């Protein structure tokens, strides 16, 4: 699916990266612990998180992710948004909670990539 499909499924507000909505995404992960994202994630292109700080963008950048979804409608500040713009990462906010947001994406065909550690 594309970033645009993710946006529609999650009824998400696009915060930045409107020009990258047609990028393809195949896998996702949901975590508030960036240490775990760095340790266990492989080739996932979407990060769902309830954590809102610049390290979320830096972590996604290190992992070559294309899109970050803030769950529970959380909003990043300007510093986070400009960091994401610099790194060409799409930021969105969904009103859904983490579990539901992950479930909706999974149901629509987005997989976890590496399900077993």
């Amino acid at each position: 699916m594309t970033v645009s499909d993710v946006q529609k499924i999650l009824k998400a507000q696009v915060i930045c990266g409107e020009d990258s909505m047609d990028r393809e995404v195949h896998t996702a992960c949901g975590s508030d612990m960036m240490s775990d994202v760095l340790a266990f994630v492989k080739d996932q292109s979407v990060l769902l998180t309830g954590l809102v700080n610049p390290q979320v963008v830096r972590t996604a950048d290190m992992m070559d992710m294309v899109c970050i979804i803030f769950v529970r409608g959380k909003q990043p500040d300007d510093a986070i948004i400009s960091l994401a713009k610099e790194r060409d990462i799409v930021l969105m906010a969904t009103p859904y909670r983490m579990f539901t947001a992950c479930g909706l994406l999974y149901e629509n065909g987005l997989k976890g990539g590496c399900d077993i550690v």
Partner: protein
Amino acid sequence: MSAPVKLKYTVPGDDFTRAGEASGSVKKALKKLGVCPDAVRKVAIAMYEGEINMVIHANGGEITVEITPEAVDMVLRDQGPGIENIDLAMQEGYSTAPDNVRALGFGAGMGLPNMKKYTDEMKVESEVGVGTTVTMRVYIKQ
């Protein structure tokens, strides 16, 4: 790329929001040099973890990076409190990070193990009260 490319960074210890700037810059430099994406990602993740550690535990430090056609060598040096038991620190899940760091998404005890996982060679030298030096190498596949 013929001559080695040398990069040097000072990591400020008082600003968690800036942790990762050096790693981001190295990642960009490696991409520009045409280094294979797999090696770029390994270097970026290992260095980022090290940089985060420097900010969390050691009030910052210095990072030098040398890029040759064969490998990327990173040396992360700090003058922090040092690591009492390196074997213990290398275990997954062991962490001495305070709660405020965990609230920021780090401190799961995955930093050093992750650095080892993503590098081809890694050496940790530390003296309590003096500081820590982490040396890492990632080979570049031709």
